[in-house]
């Protein structure tokens, strides 16, 4: 296999797409900012996100406190930046879990078909029959109100999207020539499935994953907004908006607006990136 020429071809294609589409380039830059904030955030912020200072409560944005201070005198900027890690961690682990579960279930159903396929389809239909955010609420309520359970609930409601995608991609290649060749060469079913068929499903999966990440962040922040999962005083965008909402009617806008903007920034980044990745992976689907 000529790996070098192939990858340089891929890179030049990516370079070509990025030059033609500055918005995608911008989304990668925004993604880099998010990653930096998540990895280095706690080291970079000027104040301890949990340190309260009652004398300095509810100060509007200033040079000392860029995003102002909250009702306990905590620095909102430090809290918004620190929260990036937790929010990204929840959504990335949830999406990774559903990616893995969806891949295995979808690949097995698509390859072997039969009753396994029928059962899986029914189960996925049933999950999709729930309003998904409401199902997530029900799962967290049943499992217990912790951050891990937010991750599991978000993973469950995302799994059908991946399972269906992988199932379709595997199913259309089940009888392909290269699959027969691989089998005749003595590969086992599992090996053919994992090494020959499944990799074909990865590009559309990456697109789905990026679009899903934005949705997963919204979902997790929504759950913590209504009081599930993350507990105060932990810094997390959803709960910060919820706490700030109590002060919005008396005009202290900075408490809720900055974490909300950070949340929008993250979701917007993943949505833009997903659209950009789709252009790279499948140029025909450009809208």
């Amino acid at each position, binding site marked *: 296999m000529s790996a070098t020429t192939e990858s340089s071809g891929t890179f030049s294609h990516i370079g070509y797409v990025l030059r033609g589409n500055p918005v995608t380039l911008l989304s990668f830059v925004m993604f880099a900012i998010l990653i930096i904030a998540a990895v280095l955030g706690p080291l970079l912020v000027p104040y301890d996100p949990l340190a309260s200072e009652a004398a300095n409560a509810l100060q509007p944005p200033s040079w000392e406190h860029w995003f102002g201070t909250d009702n306990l005198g905590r620095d909102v900027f430090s809290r918004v930046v620190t929260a990036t890690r937790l929010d990204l961690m929840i959504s990335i682990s949830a999406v990774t879990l559903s990616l893995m579960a969806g891949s295995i279930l979808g690949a097995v159903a698509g390859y072997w078909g039969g009753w396994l396929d029928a059962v899986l389809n029914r189960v996925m239909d049933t999950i999709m*029959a729930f309003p998904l955010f409401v199902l997530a609420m029900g799962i967290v309520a049943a499992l217990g109100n912790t951050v891990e359970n937010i991750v599991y609930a978000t993973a469950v409601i995302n799994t059908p999207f991946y399972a269906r995608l992988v199932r379709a991609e595997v199913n259309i290649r089940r009888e392909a020539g290269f699959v027969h060749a691989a089998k005749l060469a003595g590969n086992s079913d599992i090996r053919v499935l994992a090494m020959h068929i499944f990799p074909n499903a990865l590009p559309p999966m990456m697109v789905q994953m990026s679009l899903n990440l934005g949705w997963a962040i919204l979902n997790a922040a929504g759950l913590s907004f209504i009081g599930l999962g993350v507990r105060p005083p932990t810094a997390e965008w959803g709960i910060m908006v919820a706490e700030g909402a109590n002060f919005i009617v008396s005009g202290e806008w900075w408490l809720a607006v900055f974490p909300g903007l950070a949340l929008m920034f993250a979701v917007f980044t993943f949505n833009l990136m997903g659209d950009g990745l789709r252009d790279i992976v499948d140029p025909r689907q450009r809208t």
Partner: protein
Amino acid sequence: MSPRLRGILFRIAQAIPVVIGVVIIGFVLTRALPGDPAVYFAGAAADATSIAEIRKTLGLDLPLPQQFLIYVGDLLRGDFGQSISTGQPVIADLASRLPASLELTLVALLLSCAIAIPLGVMAATRPGSLIDHACRVLVTAGVSLPTFFTGVVLIYIFYYLLGIAPSPLGRLDFIYIEPDRITGFYLIDSALAGDGETFLAALRQLVLPAITLALFTLAPIARMTRAAMLGALSADFVRTARAAGLTGRTVRYTYAFRNALLPVVTTLGMVFSFTLGANVLVEKVFAWPGIGSYAVEALVVSDYAAVQGFVLAMAFLFVALNLLIDVTYTLIDPRIGFEAS
């Protein structure tokens, strides 16, 4: 039996396994997960004997299949359990609060359809124009908006800064008296009672939450309308109609738009699912006394039966709505009935 009727019956039959699945998931969520429901139902001040007693009354000491049968029997009788916090049957609580949520959701959906569909059509008929770009920006920004955040920002602007919105606390300012309950929809009830003042007051309370929810649903509807309209405009029958010399208007609205509406109707089902979820958040922001805020209040105090009743009720509502949409679809689109046979 006409093929169309057969199509409708076929679609209703398809919903049965989904309903069974929903009931099974509901059962798994209430009974089979780690954590002891008896402890929840007994409350905080319970000791071992009272927990054991409650376990017996709830039938939790029976084998799982038998428990499942009892559970299904309860659901068939409309028994969703008792709410700990209100002391009422969950189904009664949900029924009394459902109109508030439905009023909000329906007004929001109407509003967003009224904006998104014309926008999508205009974007599709003038590709590359300013309105097309505006539509694209709106669609991308719309899906990135956290509903609860939009609500908070709208409250800040229209209540605090401009002072034109009433305080975001519920369906009616406390100085007004609730209209007599006929439908439970304040707008309809006050209109029926001929009480213009209460109608306006209820409308003023409704505007901000409805806009918040509408902003959220705008994006998928506009996106789908644009795509469907583009598809319809490039179809052969539109070219034929143009070649036959029909005016641009007739072609666009009588030929293309009618066909483009079909996929939009299907999307509405999906949008409704998102809306039911977003409803929970919007109701919390605006202290709207609907089933969403009921579920949130129940979550906070670990009122287990109320939350699960809410989840199940939402699922049934959603399944029924999708069924309704598909049946309507079969009635509008003569091709569907034949496919099923």
